[in-house]
């Protein structure tokens, strides 16, 4: 019960206090993803995170788009063209629509979540290579976000007043299941990146599922300024480990 209460409080705190003062429309971050092959890091793909404004007849939303494409030299061996999108409230990054279209080698999967925050239900559509469509509605807990809006939401936390070892919990909906995840603040470090020498917040990410391996094996570094841009990441997944390094950053808010 105590744990449940703690989790509830952290989610409420995270959702109510997190106001977007770090992300603006028109921001474009480009990364190089490398994979560790027998101890040698090999550049595999280019990852782009981009934001833009989307206007409907009722509201203006923020479109968060993440793409991953393999470098051309890999295309004949293993081609990846992934598109992740979220349409969110520009102030709180609350998601309304999330889409995932992944094309990796011979594997294809399309997933769409439509969030209904009044009834706390998600209407999902899943499509696979054989074009078979599967619709499923399921409920979600208040504060749950999709993977893309979570990635951006991490940038809204206030790390300045956090003590080393402090944790923040959040829930991500992935493959129509809610996954509990946690970030641990590990302190400040200065990194030499492609966009300059930056003071960074070092964070460890862990999840309740086996997607991310180990306690402090999945690390990200966010710039210790108002933009809190992810500049470097180290990850360990069941099929190996790799890195994510920033290549360029444009259209930053601050």
């Amino acid at each position: 019960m105590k744990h449940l209460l703690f989790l509830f409080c952290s989610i409420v705190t995270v959702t109510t206090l997190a106001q977007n003062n770090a992300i603006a429309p028109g921001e474009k971050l480009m990364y190089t993803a490398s994979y560790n092959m027998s101890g040698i890091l090999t550049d595999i793909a280019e990852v782009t995170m981009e934001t833009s404004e989307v206007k409907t007849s009722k509201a203006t939303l923020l479109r968060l788009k993440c793409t991953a494409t393999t470098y051309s030299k890999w295309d004949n061996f293993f081609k990846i063209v992934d598109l992740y999108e979220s349409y969110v409230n520009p102030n709180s990054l609350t998601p309304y629509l999330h889409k995932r279209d992944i094309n990796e080698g011979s594997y294809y999967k399309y997933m769409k979540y439509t969030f209904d925050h009044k009834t706390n239900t998600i209407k999902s559509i899943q499509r696979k290579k054989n074009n078979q469509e599967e619709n499923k509605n399921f409920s979600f807990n208040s504060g749950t976000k999709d993977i893309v809006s979570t990635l951006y939401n991490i940038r809204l936390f206030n790390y300045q007043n956090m003590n080393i070892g402090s944790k923040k919990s959040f829930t991500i909906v992935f493959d129509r299941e809610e996954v509990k995840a946690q970030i641990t603040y590990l302190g400040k470090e200065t990194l030499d990146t492609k966009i300059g020498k930056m003071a960074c917040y070092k964070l460890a990410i862990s999840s309740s599922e086996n997607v991310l391996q180990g306690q402090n094996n999945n690390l990200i570094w966010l710039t210790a300024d108002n933009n809190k841009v992810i500049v470097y990441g180290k990850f360990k997944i069941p099929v190996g480990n790799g890195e994510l390094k920033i290549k360029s950053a444009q259209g930053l808010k601050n």
Partner: protein
Amino acid sequence: MKRLFTILAIIMAVLATILSVLPLSNLAFFPALAALIFASMAYFLSKKSGDPKKIIHFIFLLSIISLVLSTYKAMFTETEVTNTEELKAKEKESKEDALEDLEELDLGDISIN
């Protein structure tokens, strides 16, 4: 012993040559260096016994070619994405679909301007 080193050197040199022409060229350094070490040992033993060293010269040649090729690729090959058309088309289609979906959503009571 000389025969074992020669066989190992041949295997490593062939592996290094294959890897160096693939996108995995960074991995060719290990077998190429191993081939050079084994070939050097085989060369030393052949020299001692006065046996022919033609095959060993060939192994050296293969290893050096794969090392040069891998180094060149590591230093001068630009990693870039050229197949952007597919992704752009996917993005465009996805945004159009999303706009239709968003129009159907009830966003009226949410304070978004």
